[in-house]
Each structure stands twice: as C-alpha cells, then as structure tokens.
C-alpha cells in the first residue's frame, strides 16, 4: 500500500517509526507492504513513487525540516504534494486547528475527491465539519478512519462501531484529556496547587507552553463531539458542547473531595441529551479513578451493559499505533490488494 503522510510532528514521526518497527510483522501477518511515496511537513515535502527512505527522513527531521532535505522540495505544501505523489491512502497528522480545521480539512477532502482512503489523528476538522467529511467519504466510496483522534491509543471509536456493533451505545462517559488528568492527579497525590501542577506538567513536556486547549477543556470537547457524531449518531459540532475547564479547581476542593472518598476529574459526558465537559467528582477505586496521563471511557450499552476502555491518551508511538491499526483495517477491507 502506498501512503502519503502529511504532518511530521510527534504523531507523524511516530507513524514512520511504527511502520519501520513493524515492517516485517505487517508483511508476515497481513501481507501488507507499506511504502511511503510522499511525506510533507510545514517546511516542504519529498515524493518518490518507488518509496522514500524513512530512516533518512527521520534522521534529517531531528535537525531540520523536510524543505532542507537533499531530495526535498523546499516550500512544497501538503496540498501540492497530493497532486504530485502517487498513493492509495493519505495519513493526515497535521496540527489540530479549531478555528477552521485547516489545513487538515482541505487535505482530507482533496484526497477523498481523488478517490483515496484517509486515516487521520487530527481533531479540528472532525469537531467542526464531521458531517461534511463523512458525506465526502461516502460519496467518493473511500474509507475514512480516525481512531487516533480520540484518546490516542485507547480504543473507543472502533471498539464501539466494530467490536460492539450489536449494541446501541446509550452514553459515553470518560476522561479524554491526559494533560488535565495528570495535573489533577498531581494535585491529589502531592497536595500541590493548580499552578504548581501545571508548571510541573509543562516541565515534563506533558502540557504545552500555551496549555489553554487542554486546561480549558477544548481538547476534550473536540473528542466529545467526535464521539457524539461517530458513536451515538448525534450530529453536533464544537459549539454545541457545554465546556468548563480545570483552571478553577483549587487544592482546597481536591482535599474536601478526598475526605469523602472522591477525586476530581475532567469528565466528558455524551448521551442523547447531554454533551458536556467539566470537572466532576468520581469515586476513588471506580473505573474513572485512572491516574496520570491515562484516558478512559465507559460505554453504556443496551445489550452488553457497561464496557470500559483505558489506555494512553497521548504519546508519539501510542497515537501512531491507532493510526497504523486503521491503516491495516483499510488494507483488509479493500481486500488486501
């Protein structure tokens, strides 16, 4: 399968590394031979119908962008690359943009328009234009998979839609943001203030320098929208979510909660009549009491009762694992050609 990868941040690089690590496994187990025929980052792109040298790209990327790669096209955009490269599936890992979903939205639509399958880890376009993207995929008759956009390595989209295909999912309640879960976990275990825990998270590279999207709940809200649309079949966008972040949580509140056997967690609740993200009390020892950067989600189903998934919500290889699984699924669905 020929893949065009656009976006070479932590997740994009993770995808290259994952394919490198699992090359033989993929060939032996699935008869799947992945060839990268195009790769782009924000500085430029490379393409070669015979397949690019992944090791060389990863080495170069440690020092500089693809624009300065010896065989790179300086300044070539992802959009231009899609015109040049020959490929079967676009793997889109550009940064999440919650203003207009770009450049992810245009890339995805263009690939679909050209009859290519798409795997994405991006949340922005899905949270803003879910219906439009789904329609484009179905019109083009291509596969569009986005497990990595919610909860990194924690299985949820495919768990609900494939593994629990017999069940109607009544609600999904979960922790969908690892950064805030880390901050709240540290406040509970170390007795630190919100401010101290945030600084610690930034020093460890868990929180970004501008942590707004995480701590104000926007990131979790995007994921809630994707779950509402894809699992509950409830059409909505980011504007429909009631969002409250964790910036108002004090150490005093955490202590008062702990005295009664509770933890405070940033919880997303998605059901027929609820679509919200906010700090909630959860019982210590309950499935919601996951620590650190872990994500979790409990799906309430009509036939199977409650099903809970827990997993790493971020991380380069972890998120890439979900994208690679989606790629394998597409390969199998298309008859392993």
């Amino acid at each position, binding site marked *: 399968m020929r893949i065009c990868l656009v976006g070479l941040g932590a997740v994009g690089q993770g995808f290259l590394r994952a394919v490198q690590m699992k090359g033989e496994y993929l060939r032996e187990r699935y008869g799947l031979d992945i060839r990268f025929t195009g790769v782009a980052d924000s500085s430029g792109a490379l393409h070669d119908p015979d397949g690019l040298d992944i090791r060389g790209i990863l080495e170069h990327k440690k020092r500089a962008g693809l624009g300065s790669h010896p065989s790179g096209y300086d300044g070539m955009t992802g959009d231009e690359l899609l015109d040049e490269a020959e490929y079967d599936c676009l793997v889109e890992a550009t940064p999440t943009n919650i203003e207009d979903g770009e450049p992810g939205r245009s890339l995805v639509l263009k690939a679909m328009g050209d009859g290519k399958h798409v795997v994405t880890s991006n949340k922005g376009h899905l949270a803003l234009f879910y219906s439009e993207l789904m329609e484009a995929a179905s019109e083009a008759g291509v596969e569009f998979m986005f497990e990595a956009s919610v909860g990194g390595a924690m299985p949820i989209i495919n768990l609900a839609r494939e593994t629990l295909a017999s069940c109607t999912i009544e609600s999904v*309640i979960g922790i969908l943001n690892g950064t805030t879960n880390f901050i709240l976990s540290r406040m509970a275990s170390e007795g630190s*203030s*919100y*401010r101290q825990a945030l600084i610690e998270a930034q020093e460890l590279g868990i929180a970004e320098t501008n942590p707004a999207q995480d701590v104000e709940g926007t990131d979790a809200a995007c994921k809630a929208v994707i779950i509402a649309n894809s699992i509950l079949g409830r059409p909505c966008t980011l504007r429909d979510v009631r969002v*409250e972040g964790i910036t*108002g*949580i*004090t*150490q*005093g*509140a955490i*202590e*008062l*909660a702990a*005295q*009664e056997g*509770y933890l*405070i*967690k940033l*919880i997303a*609740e998605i059901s027929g009549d609820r679509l919200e993200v*906010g*700090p*909630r*009390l*959860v019982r210590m020892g309950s499935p*919601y009491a996951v620590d650190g950067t872990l994500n979790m989600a409990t799906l309430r189903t*009509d036939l199977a009762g409650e099903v809970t998934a827990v997993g790493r919500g971020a991380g380069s290889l972890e998120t890439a694992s979900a994208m690679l699984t989606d790629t394998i699924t597409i390969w199998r669905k298309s008859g392993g050609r």
Partner: protein
Amino acid sequence: MRLNLVIELRDAPGQLVSVLEPLGSTGVNIVTVIHERDREYGPVVPVQLTVEGDRETLDAAIGRLQEQGVNIIEMDGAPLREKFTTILIGDIAEGDLQETVEAVNSVQGASVLDLSLRMSEGRSAARITVEAEHGSRDEVLRRINEAAMERNLLLVSEV
C-alpha cells in the same frame, strides 16, 4: 424475617432473571415477585419483591442488588434515601452558602447533612453533602446549579 422491596428494572428481556438468580444464590428465600409490565412506565418498570431470611442473609441480598447496580426505590414501604456530594468553588460569601442550603431545602424531603469549607489559592471551596429521597437527586442538583450560576460559582458534582 421478611423484607419488602421495590426495585427498578429496565424493560428488556432477561432483566428480571438477571436480578433474581444472583439474589437467590445469596440464600435468601424469594417469597413474591410482582412485575407490573402491563402498565405504562417508560423504559424502567418497578418490581415488588418480598424476600425472607435472617438479618445477615437479607443484608447480603441487598448488597448483591446494589453491586449489580439495581436501583432499590423502596424498602419496607419507606422511600429509600440517598446521599450525594457536590463541591462549589469560587468567591463564596456567607450569604451564598445560606441560599444554597435553602435551595436544597426547597426540594421536598431533601436536607443538607454536612457543609465544609476550605480556603486555598485565594478562593473558597465548599463541600455540600445532601440527603434526599430517591429520585429527587436531579432536581436538588438543578437547584444547587441555579444558585451556583447566579453567584458565578463553579459546581463540581458526582458523575
């Protein structure tokens, strides 16, 4: 001794058996089961149960129901009461707490069991533990939430 219970079950095949089997396995004697499916209740149906056994067995039986997440709405004719906790955070003035307590009391059968305050990072947090009749929890929370929003306080409630 005998115990009369009213439990809530989802109106779906197999629900009754899935509750009665584990209940029986605790050693309790199930005397009567009244399952009024013919009346229109919506997605949940109340089921009256009479069970017999010694104190310990009955306790085990109730524990088993609760473990399974079965809602017990009545025990020996009295509505079951439930306890829940919420936390308010922000610039909490004395009057705010007074009014929040009144908001809770305005719901029939609901009262504040405990109120604790903690100052940190220049803001107050108040933990309010409420006891209310089974089924009135959402109404109590709605009124607390109204009171909190009016005062620009953050409400943290149980999942």
